[in-house]
Every structure is written in C-alpha cells, then in structure tokens.
C-alpha cells in the first residue's frame, strides 16, 4: 500500500468483486475482527468454509472468559486475555451476549499446590489482573460448598466469567453484517495468489474475489492457509482435543463458580463450570490428535475426565448427563498466539489461538485494527456504524403480561416447540430470519436452544425440521443437522415402487 486511503465503494475488477479486507474464518476471532473493522470505511468479506459461523473451535470449548493469571506474563496470551476480559462487559452489553462474572477458583490440595497458587497469583498481579486473592479452606467452601473435601485453599479470581461462545460469535457476525460486512458461507479458500499488491482468493466451491488485505483467522487451518501465500512456513498448528460432559440444569447446584484443578506436572487439569444457560460442564481432556476433523468423544477420554474431575468437586451427578462433545484447540508450534503482520505484506495472521482464545477475542480484534492502522495510516470512521445488536426475545424470561402482549402481536410466540427449554416457534423463526440466520437444525439450536435441553431434540427435532423447511422453502429431506450433507431424512415413505425403495420421494 502506498497511500493511506482505503476506498469504501463497490469496485469490480473484471467480474471479480474487490474488497479492502478479506477475513478467512468466521469463528470468534474472525467475527470479532469483522465487527471491529466494520467501525471503519472498509469493504470487508468474511469467508467461512462451513455453512454457519462458529463451527470450529468456537463451537466446542469451555465457554469461559478467563481472568488472565494463568498465561505467562509477557506473552501475547497474557496481554490479550487480561485486556479481552476487561472489554467483554461492554461488548456483551452492546451485542446482547449472555455473560456472567461468576468468578473462578483454582483449588489446592497440598502445600505444593499452594505454592503453585502463589506463583499464579504473582503472575496475575504482574499482568494487572484485578482482585486476585488466595483464600483459605473455609472461604473456598463458602463460595463452592460442593468442593472436593481435600481442598485446603484456592486462588479466587472474581473477574473470571462465563459466556455463551456461540452466541458471542453469532452476535459479532450479526453486528458486522448489519454494519456492511459481506459474510460468505460455504466459501472454503483453496488458493490465494497476489498480483500487483492485490490478493486473489479462490474457493473450493469455485468462487473468486480480490482483496487488498487478508486476515487469516482460520483457526486450526491457519498454517494451511498461510502456506498458500508463503511456502516457507514458520509455524505449524496441531489439533488438541478436549472432551466434555454437559449436565442437566437440574445439576446446577453442584457449582455456581468456575472450579479449576491446580496445574501440576501432569498438566493443567480439568474444570467444572456453570454455563450461561444454567447447565454445568465438566472438561476438557487434552490430547493431541492427528486429524483436524477428529471431534469424536471416546470412552477412554470420558473415563479420564470423570477420574480427573473427582479432584474438583465432591459430587458430580453423571446420571444427569445430557450430552458429550469434543472440540479441537489450535495448538501452535510457537506456543504463543500468532497475531502479527506476516512476512507477506498486507497478510495478517491471527491464528494458533488456543485457550484463552475466547477470552482474548475482543483484544485480538482491537489489535488487528491496530496493525492495519499502523501499516496503513489513519482509518476513516464508518459514520453509519451501529454498535448495538437487536436482542433476542426470550419468551421464557418474559413476565406473563409481556408474554400475552407478544402472542397478540405475533401468534407464533404462542406455540411452544421445545418443551425442555420452553422455546417458541416465534423465537425459532426469528433465529432463521435474522442477519446470519440459522439454516440447519444445530444452527437453530445454537441460536435459540431447542434441542439443548434434557430430551436433546427428541420431541422438538421433527418440528424444527418442519419449521426450517417452511421458512427456507426447501423440502424436509433437504434440511440438514449441521454439515452440508448432513441430511436427517431419507425420502418419503409409501413410494409407489413398494417398501424396498427408499430413494423415491
């Protein structure tokens, strides 16, 4: 770039659309960066290989905004975590993201553990984590009565918070789109070339666009995408699997705060935490796997998890388990986050964002804006930028009077589809028709939760399929669970050719 002006207007180079910035990956990093960049006069494309946002690491993690004492002071992880934690209050308010500062405890069961807590606390104080303190047994049990009986003290971090990670990314994406960002789903980048300072980005699906800047926020695939422009790759990203239990809301009393095991030679240990929706999650395990698509849960992993979690809480009612899941963390060979202008001009890497990535996202987004400003010169503010996202109506949270009024206005709110979570048809239809609307059963589930409850979609699943079919105007057999080919139904029964042929519809 030679001049400081990035023009904000539709430009077409031949038939290929031209952007100022292309962000590759619509997880929490890509979506938060898109929203922060939409404050300025850029033409932005947000590219995602899956059919929805938040489908990678953002989909399956602990849903925690860490306080920031854990990451080693001086690293990017430490810097962005502490800053991100501070930024989340305003972000969640503006974007209506469920967020609660419930506080966290790292529990100690030995003198050695207590020394570890001291080290963590010192590290946290250097990183300017507020209100950290080491508490004794009595205070720890007052905070979480169900702690493992052998706990003798804890590091208490009141600023640690829980957040809905999907809603965070969806909300960022929605707000970005509302502010002019072009979200392109099913756009799996297959090739990047650079001609005359302009990147040309081609997708597996056969589309091409041009952009002056690229932000590589492709998570696990960050090394793969960077290799497209720089064969002399300086880092690798490996998938590290974490498996989880998610317990019924009826188990909520087992902990109302985040409880971490004490890090030791055996590793960082696992955690137990409430979720913003009132469930409890237990996890994650930590094992390097060979495939970047391996999100299977395993008998061994779940057994290890149950074993490790014993050290946190006295009682964990696994009979109240409603689902298990596994997510992959993007483990960079550099060990620290990679957030920097790369060796290729105008190509910014924001990859290798493992834990505490969700915690750091708002700060990483801020840093990405900073990098562009430093290289490009002053940015022109987008005068139409609106930081506020329209909140979702949550029927079950309304008063009886409000419920009555709402149904009068829109009768779809009078039809409860999900009996476990009391989700109405109105909420589901809204989730489908918002910007960045749901197009799959799990997309609906991540936005408004039918199927997240204790029956896991047993009753509401067929109804959600039918609503998606109606609202998207597609046949029910074309409705998918999650991935592009994840069809739920296999044609109509009673085909004229007899019972043996399932393909006829």
């Amino acid at each position, binding site marked *: 770039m030679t001049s400081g002006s990035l023009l904000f207007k539709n430009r077409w180079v031949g038939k290929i659309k031209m952007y100022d910035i292309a962000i590759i990956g619509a997880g929490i990093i890509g979506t938060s960066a898109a929203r922060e960049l939409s404050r300025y006069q850029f033409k932005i494309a947000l590219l995602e290989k899956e059919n929805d946002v938040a489908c990678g690491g953002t989909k399956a993690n602990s849903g925690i905004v860490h306080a920031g004492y854990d990451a080693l002071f001086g690293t990017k992880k430490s810097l962005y975590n502490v800053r991100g934690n501070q930024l989340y209050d305003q972000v969640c308010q503006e974007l209506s993201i469920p967020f609660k500062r419930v506080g966290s405890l790292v529990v100690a069961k030995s003198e050695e553990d207590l020394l570890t807590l001291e080290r963590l606390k010192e590290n946290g104080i250097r990183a300017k984590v507020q209100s950290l303190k080491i508490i004794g047994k009595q205070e720890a049990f007052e905070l979480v009565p169900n702690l493992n009986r052998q706990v003798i003290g804890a590091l208490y971090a009141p600023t640690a918070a829980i957040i809905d990670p999907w809603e965070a990314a969806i909300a960022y994406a929605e707000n970005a789109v509302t502010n002019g960002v072009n979200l392109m789903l099913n756009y799996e980048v297959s090739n990047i070339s650079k001609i005359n300072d302009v990147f040309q980005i081609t997708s597996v699906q056969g589309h091409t666009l041009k952009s002056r800047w690229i932000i590589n926020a492709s998570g696990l695939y960050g090394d793969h995408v960077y290799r497209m422009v720089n064969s002399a790759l300086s880092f690798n990203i490996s998938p590290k699997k974490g498996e989880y*239990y*998610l317990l019924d809301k009826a188990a909520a009393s087992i902990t109302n705060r985040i409880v971490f095991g004490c890090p030791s030679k055996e590793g960082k240990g696992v955690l137990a935490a409430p979720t913003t929706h009132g469930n409890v999650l237990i996890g994650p395990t930590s094992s390097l796997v060979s495939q970047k698509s391996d*999100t*299977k*849960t*395993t*008998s061994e992993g*779940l057994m290890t998890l149950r074993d490790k979690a014993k050290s946190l809480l006295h009682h964990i009612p*696994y*009979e109240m*388990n*409603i*689902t*298990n*899941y596994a997510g992959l963390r993007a483990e960079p060979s550099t060990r620290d986050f990679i957030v920097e202008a790369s060796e290729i001009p105008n190509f910014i890497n924001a990859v290798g964002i493992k834990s505490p990535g969700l915690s750091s996202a708002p700060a990483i987004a801020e840093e990405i804006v900073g990098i562009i400003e430093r290289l490009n010169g002053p940015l022109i503010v987008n005068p139409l930028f609106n930081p506020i996202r329209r909140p979702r109506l949550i029927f*079950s949270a309304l008063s*009886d009077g409000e*419920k*009555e009024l709402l*149904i009068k206005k829109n*009768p779809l*709110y*009078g*039809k*409860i589809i999900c*009996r*476990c979570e*009391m989700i*109405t048809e109105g909420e589901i239809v809204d989730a489908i028709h918002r910007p960045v609307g749901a197009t799959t059963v799990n997309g609906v589930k991540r936005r408004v939760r039918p199927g997240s409850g*204790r*029956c*896991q*979609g*047993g*009753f509401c*699943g*067929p109804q959600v399929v039918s609503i998606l079919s109606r609202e998207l105007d597609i046949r*029910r057999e074309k409705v*998918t*669970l*999650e*991935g*592009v*080919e*994840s*069809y*739920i*139904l*296999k*044609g*109509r*029964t*009673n085909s*004229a*050719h*007899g*019972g*043996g*042929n*399932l393909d006829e519809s």
Partner: protein
Amino acid sequence: MKVDLAIIGGGPAGLSAAITAKNNGVETILVIEREPSLGGILQQCIHNGFGLEYFKEELTGPEYAERFMRQLLASGIHFLTETMVYEITGEKVVKAVNKTQGLMLIHAKSIILAMGCREKPRGSIALPGSRPAGVMTAGTAQRYINIEGYHVGKKILILGSGDIGLIMARRLFLEGAEVIAVAEILPYSGGLARNIVQCLHDYDIPLLLSHTITDLSGKDRVEEVTLSQVDCDLRPIKGTERKYACDTLLLSVGLVPENELSKLAGVQIDLETGGPIVTADLETSVPGVFACGNVLHVHDIVDHVTLEAQQAGTSASRYLQGLFIRDSATMSFKASKKTQYSSSKDEMICILCPVGCSLSVKPVGDEITVTGNKCPKGREYAVSELTSPKRTLTSTVILQHADLSRLPVKTDKPLKKELVLEAMSIINQTIVSSPIKSGDIIISGILGTDVNIVSTRSIP
C-alpha cells in the same frame, strides 16, 4: 378461567382420568394437550397389541386412543389442543399458551398430572464417537415414519431392546430398510416376549445381547458403528470390537417421566422412579394435585395406564366433592420384572397376549403336544404357528389432507406371514383422502385373501 379439574396431557392417562372424573360428577373439566390431536404418543404407535387387558381385544395405538376420545367428546368434556402448559403454581394456577387464545391463566381446584414420559437421549449413556446426523431416539424415528411419512435411514442399527426398539426394528424392515441388528447391553431383552418373536424372529433380525456401542464414525451422516461385548459389570471387553457399516443409529435406551411442571408446582419427586411421590389415592405432595400414567412411573402396557388414570380421576372427584381424606402413607412403584428370554427349536413364546407364555412344543406322530400354556389359546397358537403362521400387519397409507400426510392402517384379521411383504407393496401404492372413519375398509381382500386393510384412525 376457572375450572374444577385441569388435566395436563391428553394422552391415554389424561383421557381416562377426565372421563372417570366426569362420570363421578365433576362439572367443569379441562384437558390440555400440546399436540394438534388428543391421544398422546398412541397416535404414532400404529402397531397392534394395545387393549388386550382392558378391552379384551387387540387394538392399535390410534384405535385405543380413539375409544377414549369418543367417550370424552360424548360426555362434553372441554379440551384444548396445540396448547402448552408452561407453568403450574403451588396455588394450582395453570399457565398455558396457544396461538389463537394467547396466554391463559386457568385457576383449578384440582389438577391431574398426565404429561407422560420422554426418551433418554444419547448423553444419558455417554455414547462415544462423532455427532453426525442419523442418530435419533426410536420414538423420534417412529414419529417421522408413522406420522410425517419420512424414512430415517437405509441401513439401521438399534441400541436397546426395549419394546420401542423392537417395534421400530420391524417397522423399519417393513418400510424397506436393512436392520442390521438390535444390540442390548444387558444379558436379556427388556421387551415383551411377543415383540421379540414378531419383530425380530419373523424377519431374522439378530438380537445381540451383552453388547454396547464403543465408537461411532461419520462426519455429516453416520457411517459406521462399533459394537463390543460387555462383561458382567457391563464394561466393554477389549478385543471384541466389531464394526458395522450403517447410516442410522436408533436409541431405545430408556424412558423417564416428564416432571418439569410437577416440580414447578412444588410436587415432590421420587428420585428412583423419577415420578411424583404419591399416596395410594395417587395424590402428590401438593393437596389436590394427582398424578397418573407415565408421568408417575413408566408403564409397560397402556391398559395399566388407563386403570391407574381412572383411579386418579376418582380421587380427584372425591377431592372436589369434599369426600377425600388425605392418606398419610406414600407408596412407590418398583420397576417391573423383565422377561428373561431364551429360545430353542422346540420352545415357543405365545404372542397372543402380553403374558408371553413359554410353550414347549413337540410333534408326536400327527399330533402336536403343547405344554406351558396358561390358557387354551396357547395351544391354538402353537399349532397355527407350526402349520400356518399368521400376523396382523400395521402400516400407513398416503393421506390427502391439509394437516396430516399419513393414515395408519391394519389388516382386519391376521394375514399369512409369507404374504406380509407383498401386502406392504400394495399398501405403499395406496392413496386415500379424508374424511375417513376408523374401521373403514381401505383395501378390500388384499392379495386375493379374505383379509381387508382397514383404517385405524378417524380423520374428519
């Protein structure tokens, strides 16, 4: 709105409770049902085997439901469909919503809880593997196939040999799917003996006892399931893994009473059964609130639900008439004993009723001797089973109707077993339009026999 008695749920429990209460003189009764039709889960249970105890005849689910729905309509009991109760307060205010009337606050003097149960999901057994499409509970599949008219898969494995799992194995087979096996973690099946015979043996579907799933693969759709044998502590035995290619896994791993509303009303729940703690009169810990049916404990047979619901209806009417003395003792329901199942060539299980007598059958010359039968029907069954086995076939035909796309049907008398598949292909070519009454002949004399295919549901 004020009523004497509000009944939450219009399935078999709610229907019977309402009719009994009305017969006992309760004036204003309101039955609240979340589905578009009364009848509850029976509407999707299109198979036969209902009513043998209560009506002394064999009915399908929709037929069983319709008998009570007719009585309910005849007695002028009010009901709301497509209406969801979202809260019951300790003061017996029932809060419900629907699309047309909006929010309703129903002040009831007495309440009968009849919400039924739900299926345990995948998480309840912490089933490992990936999470693609193609994993669903047997009941969800039943709804897709029998009510909505959609196939759920082509190559199917079923985990859990309870009755729903067995019934769905047959149903899927008849609809043209390949059912690889029914796997069961226990060393015996929890299903009725007659279902093992009619649903698995008839179609050579293997029952793999002492097996469970140790892995599941597939990104978008299920591709492969790994089964392992389990030891006597139900732990998988290493080295016994066997992979099965399939596109669908149905789960039939148990049912749990659905008591979210009961808890909101302050009703105490028995941790063992998952249902409310009740007195011998079926009164819960909240005076004037009664419970019956699967919301109380999971029943194997709907006839028992009906009888229990009649008791709840009687109790509520006595409560409303001031004749009720609260019983201080509570009772608990123990899980019923499961049938141990074994099979050999000269042994046979009578499938004519849920008792499922084990018959010992020996041909002696031209005669056949039968022992083990508790009633004369057992002998008749064994002889006909050996000479010319017959089955009642149930399925659906295409229905041209605004809201419903399939009509449940059955053979009006048992059909020769070897004609079942051929009959299915005729049924699958049949299209009907409403109005239709239950019992109407849809196909007369199928395949040249004297067996008719008749409707089992009335569609106005």
